[in-house]
């Protein structure tokens, strides 16, 4: 039992670089702010209004239980989203701005899903959960305006900066772990649903043909017809590979050296879904892989070659740098 607790402690709280946390924050906030804005901008038709529980809760300060947000409120939340997003990006009031940014995006996306259609087409779900986790993590003392202002204030007060800057924290890992496990659970959920609801027949090849053709007839995605025309045995093999990928993605968390094969697999799966069905949150999900930053960095296949070249180039540059006489 003690051994298990020790392993759990190491899994969640082993010291991790604060720089990774800062890079993830900047990347995620950047993509959510500029690349994946939440869906509907205006209130939709009242007769279709079926609010999600999360929106009912968030609407409580503004109206009765289940009230529909009106145009002005949505505009105000959009404004909060932009202001808090920019602050979170530069790291000003980082925790509060991250929390506001995650909350405003959740509000707007929940609103767009409150008209009878709920799915993950926007793909923001996991990004928002990652942002919430980051906002509750350790203080953002790297790559942030907060850290800069703190240094300025300390200098103005005549305090001597510490000899060595704090670069790691035992609280820097858990927000990323939460996001990692949420991704793994999402994939496990997808696999379990296919096998639990569709059964082994989901792997028969005809199922994939049907799902692809259903989208082809409505959207004519680039490779849809060609893909659906593949031999049934090939479609069956692709179905099995997809379910295997979804079922075992969590191994990439437990065994970091597996992260690159799974990232490449994820790119293949999501790009394939997009090209053959014209649907799917392939880009947001792939962007969410950034929460594996430490594993991606430390297990990058060509890292030694690249670092050696970088070090060599740096040494040559310094050697040849003109020195004042």
């Amino acid at each position, binding site marked *: 039992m003690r051994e298990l607790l020790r392993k759990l402690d190491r899994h*969640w*709280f082993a010291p991790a670089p604060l720089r990774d946390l800062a890079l993830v924050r900047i990347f995620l906030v950047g993509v959510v702010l500029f690349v994946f804005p939440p869906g509907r901008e205006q209130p*939709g*038709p009242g*007769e*279709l209004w079926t609010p999600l*529980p*999360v929106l009912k809760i968030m609407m409580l300060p503004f109206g009765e239980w289940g009230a529909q947000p009106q145009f002005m409120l949505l505009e105000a939340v959009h404004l909060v989203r932009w202001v808090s997003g920019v602050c979170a990006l530069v790291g000003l009031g980082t925790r509060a701005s991250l929390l506001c940014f995650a909350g405003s995006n*959740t509000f707007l*996306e*929940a609103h767009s899903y409150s*008209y*009878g*259609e*709920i*799915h*993950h087409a926007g793909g*923001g*779900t996991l990004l*928002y*959960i990652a942002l*919430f*986790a980051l906002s*509750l993590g*350790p203080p953002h003392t790297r790559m942030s305006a907060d850290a800069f202002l703190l240094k300025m204030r300390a200098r103005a007060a005549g305090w001597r900066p510490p000899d060595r800057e704090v670069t790691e924290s035992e*609280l820097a890992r*858990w927000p990323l*772990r*939460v996001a990692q*496990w*949420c991704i793994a*659970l*999402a994939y*496990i*959920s*997808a696999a*379990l*649903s*296919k096998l*639990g*609801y*569709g059964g082994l*027949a*989901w792997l*028969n090849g*005809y*199922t994939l*043909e*049907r*799902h692809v*053709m*259903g989208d*082809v*007839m*409505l959207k004519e995605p680039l490779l*849809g*017809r*060609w893909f659906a*025309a593949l031999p*049934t045995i090939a479609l069956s093999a692709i179905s099995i590979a997809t379910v295997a990928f979804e079922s075992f993605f969590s191994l990439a968390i437990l065994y970091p050296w597996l992260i690159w094969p799974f990232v490449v697999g994820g790119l293949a799966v999501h790009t394939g879904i997009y090209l053959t069905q014209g649907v799917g949150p392939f880009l947001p999900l792939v962007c969410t892989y950034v929460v594996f930053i430490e594993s991606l960095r430390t297990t990058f296949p060509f890292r030694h070659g690249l670092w050696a070249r970088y070090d060599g180039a740096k040494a040559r540059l310094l050697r040849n740098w003109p020195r004042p006489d």
Partner: protein
Amino acid sequence: MSPSKIFAACVASVFLLIQLYVIVPFGYTGKWYWPFVDYRMYAGSWHRGDVIEVYEARGQPCDSVPQDETVEAGGLRSQEADRLGFELGIGSSRFQTVAARVKAENADGDEARATIGAAIERRFPGHYCDAQIWLQSYTVGVDDPLDPSRHWNLFQAWPLAGVTDFR
């Protein structure tokens, strides 16, 4: 264990336990707990010989001649009826369910026609005189996905009477 770690452990547990609760057992209900979602989309299984039917909404502009009842796939742009696609404000899967009911000559059919008619009027007020639902079908494992002669067939058409305030 420090208070910070205890706080972190509690937050992480809440996130992951809610997500677990939502995805097990596997069913429809979990989607209501968004942003914790069960990813059940495309989970149904199909077999050789099963038939897919997809519906599409189009609007007949008031100043145009009604079109033929069959349109070849790929030739839609030249037709006078406009494809309204997903612009109606009705989500895609919900639209498919509603569209399948428009032919019924009962209260259910009336409601489906009123829903789609109201959506067209709300989105394009006064622009269309007729609402149309078109149907295309495909038999899994039998039809050729690359067959260029696939057709959209007119499933149902009805006049729009300036419906602006459907419930």
